[in-house]
């Protein structure tokens, strides 16, 4: 049983990412879908930080990248929730099934 190394972090990240993708494809609730996307982004963050720690220990590029990703994710969620609100105002639902005002 090897010491916890890069590959462990990468594995966790990959699993997290797949989890996100799974949620993205299966969930029918917009909020849940946003959460799945957050999972994917966090998987990326994990990757970044892990790489930064193990590949470039003296440069902080990876962590920097992670910070930007976090920010962007926050912005995306903010905008996303706002849009979901306006959808909700229109048709009192947050289910993707109802997003059919145009040919999907």
């Amino acid at each position, binding site marked *: 049983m090897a010491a916890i190394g890069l590959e462990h972090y*990468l594995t966790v990240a990959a699993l997290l*990412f797949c989890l*996100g993708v799974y949620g*993205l494809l299966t969930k029918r609730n*917009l909020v849940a*879908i*946003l959460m799945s*996307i957050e999972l*994917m*982004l966090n*998987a*990326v963050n994990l*990757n*970044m930080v*892990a*790489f930064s720690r193990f*590949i*470039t220990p003296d440069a902080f*590029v*990876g962590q*920097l*990248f992670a910070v*930007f*990703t976090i920010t*962007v994710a926050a*912005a*995306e969620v903010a*905008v*996303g929730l*706002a*849009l*979901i609100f*306006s*959808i909700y105002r*229109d*048709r009192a639902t947050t289910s993707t099934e109802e*997003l059919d*005002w*145009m*040919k*999907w």
Partner: protein
Amino acid sequence: MDLSLLTTEIVTVALACFVVALDLLMPAGEPRRALGYLTLLGLAGIFVHAFTQYGLNASLYGGMFRVDDYAVFFKQVFLAAYMLTILFSVRTADGFAPYTGEFYGLMLFSLAGMMVMASANDLVTLFVGMELMTITFFVLVGFNLGDGKSSEAGVKYLILGAASTAVLLYGMSLIYGYTGTVVLPEIAARLSASPAALVGIVFFLAGFAFKIAAVPFGMWVPDVYEGAPVPITALLAMASKAASFAVLTRVFLTAFADAPYNWPLIIAWLAAASMIAGNLAAILQTNVKRLLAYSSIAQAGYLLTGLVAAGPDGVKGIIFYTALYVFASAGAFAVVAAVRDETGSDDIAAYRGLARSSPLLAAAMTVALLSMAGIPPLAGFVGKLYLFLAVLEKGWFWLALLGFVMSMVSVYYYLLVVKAMYLGEPAGAPTADGCAALRWAALASLALTVLCGVYPTPLAALASRVAQNFFQ
């Protein structure tokens, strides 16, 4: 560190803040068109100033941000796209009161994002610029609060866009992890055959295939284009696509150029699929916005062929064609905006008899569409000539043949619109004529499209100079 290299970006952001602030200070009731013209003026100034940046070839922040001819050219393309768009969107923007100011402000922020993309020389900068563009577009697509379709389109764009961003980021993280750097030239130096690198490149390509709306990642395009306000649809079609191509080309020709994978083949497949699917699907459309959406998928396919050629000629083709595509789409969407504003519909039926009510708009639409189809003597023909010459040069015979045949097939659905405009009698609904600014936009697009088709030499010369960027 020479901040003056950042002038275009800084001024754009400042202008955005200024417009928003001004909008706050203006009394609520007053019309906001002045803001639009102010924005236009500012952009014109930046456009002129950009000429002074040719030939600098400097970089900032330790090579993270390059100001080379390539970047400058694309910035000017974006600026042209935004100026034309604002020209024909002043009236649409009036409809967004009391959020007119925000409308222009957000447009400017997205423009700033594109400028950063064009100059980005490392993955982080690239990512930040791209997200600035994308997130503002999420808002802008859903900007039409009165229309449920708009917010629906916004949500769809957001979800798919965010997901594609995640995929792209995952690819970036792998590339970074494998090469230990995010700066493109260094990546090129350290990249070698490995599963990690391969997955990274593939994810990267997938993420950007979404942004440029290439099949099979471009399936969001029809809905989003249909739902979004016309000016935003136009910007998505012209500027956003152009920016993504700027990045894609730069990354693949600097970072992945020598990657030990036959990526031109993958891109060739993407291009072929986009050309076929886009054109065939467009034939079935009855809504002009959706029709233009599918045609823009096809256009992405044509542009990708330039990347397949992966050489100075190919880049030149991409650059030249991007500019022409901006000119053409500006005209087409200007007409769409006029018809939308005055008949409230985007169906082909709403275009009946346009030739009678407004010959100029009808002519502009016809020329724009035929230029997209690549009919001489319009600009599109020359553009396709450059693109397909480049791939033929590299021996991609089938791709060029497919490209030409498909563009001739596309004439079919473009002519359906032309037929409606010239053959049909005005059907009851008020016929569009557009406001003065809009007509100017249409006229400008018409003139540019014809001019670049009849005498392409100046633009082509500039393009070939810019295309040398990656190949000294």
